[in-house]
């Protein structure tokens, strides 16, 4: 069974204080690891897809990396507008019986000015 574990559950940072969010996963036949951002009362918004170990992607203050067992979302010099819940999800091989996109419980990030 595919599993995704995110840590920490909640993180409070001062503006400009860089940190990382962790996503550990187990899946048979990884087809993609996805990061989403979710603001209160809204649907998740896509950030990144990573397909293979060693891959990295960046967008503004965010950088996502992938190994064979985990992914990190690095946040550099965060601003209050980065406050949100960050969700990690994995897609396994559907032909091997995996269900589409299994999500972790998320990390709730608060950035204080």
């Amino acid at each position, binding site marked *: 069974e595919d599993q995704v574990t995110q840590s920490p559950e909640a993180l409070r940072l001062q503006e400009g204080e860089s940190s990382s969010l962790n996503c550990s996963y187990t899946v048979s036949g990884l087809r993609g690891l996805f990061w989403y951002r979710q603001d209160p009362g809204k649907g998740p918004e896509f950030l990144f897809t990573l397909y293979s170990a060693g891959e990295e992607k960046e967008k503004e203050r965010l950088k996502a990396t992938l190994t064979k067992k985990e992914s990190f979302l690095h946040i550099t010099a965060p601003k209050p507008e980065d406050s949100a819940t960050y969700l990690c999800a994995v897609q396994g091989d559907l032909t091997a019986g995996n269900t589409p996109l*299994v999500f972790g419980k*998320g990390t709730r990030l608060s950035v204080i000015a």
Partner: protein
Amino acid sequence: NAGVTQTPKFRILKIGQSMTLQCTQDMNHNYMYWYRQDPGMGLKLIYYSVGAGITDKGEVPNGYNVSRSTTEDFPLRLELAAPSQTSVYFCASSYPKEKLFFGSGTQLSVL
């Protein structure tokens, strides 16, 4: 540029009532999904569809039904609503193996 549209946004049901949550997308995506999100529990897949006429169960399908008669629409039916179905429901769509686009959600309370 509508994307994924869900209706209604809010609904209160009494125990035992039935209702349909509507979802439509205008991106010609093959895949569509229904998730529920409970506080602190992440998103759980209820049902998904890989194309018109094809549906399959996700992790938490009990108490729900779906149909996919067209590419655009993927309604979720709740029969005999129970308090355990109080949740926020999200519909999403995608091309195969690509990112999901989510709707804005339906907040459902069963009392």
